[in-house]
């Protein structure tokens, strides 16, 4: 495979980071192919393939909310063909704001990824304890 020019600031997109959202995600039902680009140990970007204008910042919810809990409904387990827990990765969409205090994370509708077959889905939890706009309190990574 011959690579075209790679900008050193761009994280390398690996083939195995591509996922299919068979039903799209709410609001973007027509888009099914996304890649995940890791940025640092907290944030990643979920980027629509071939559509640079469509992307989301996503975060590992367990790093910001240590008691976050998800029970995957049976229909999701079947649909994504999940056979064991360790093939599943959960990420949540962040609504960014220049002001860190106004950043929120959607804890009601996590993204579920199957690392084995690369199928993914945004699911909606029935747990009333979680908020769609949960304040994003970042762990202090810089240690002031």
């Amino acid at each position: 495979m011959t690579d075209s020019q790679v900008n050193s600031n761009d994280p390398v997109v690996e083939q195995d980071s591509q996922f299919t959202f068979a039903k799209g995600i709410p609001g973007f039902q027509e888009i099914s192919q996304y890649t995940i680009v890791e940025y640092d140990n907290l944030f990643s970007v979920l980027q629509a393939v071939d559509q640079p204008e469509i992307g989301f910042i996503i975060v590992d919810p367990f790093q910001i909310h240590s008691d976050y809990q998800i029970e995957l409904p049976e229909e999701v387990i079947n649909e994504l063909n999940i056979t064991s827990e360790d093939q599943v990765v959960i990420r949540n969409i962040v609504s960014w704001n220049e002001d860190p205090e106004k950043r929120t994370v959607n804890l009601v509708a996590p993204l579920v990824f199957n690392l084995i077959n690369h199928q993914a889905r945004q699911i909606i939890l029935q747990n009333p304890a979680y908020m769609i706009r949960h304040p994003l309190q970042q762990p202090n990574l810089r240690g002031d």
Partner: protein
Amino acid sequence: MLVLSRKKGESIMINDQIEVTILGIDAETIKIGIKAPKNIEIHRKEIFDAIQSNNQDAVASSAQLKSWLQSENKN
């Protein structure tokens, strides 16, 4: 839109697999029971709408996302 009248305890069938029953009526609130196959997703519409609009608020271009995250790391 199809409009039907139903009394408490009565049902409607959607295709032959989805059954919607009126379980109770209390002033402005109606309690509905839904029997459907597991692959049919059922959500309160306002929750689905809120997630859709949250996704639409969160979307940004690849360049924008990159500049946000890079400026974050510089701080």
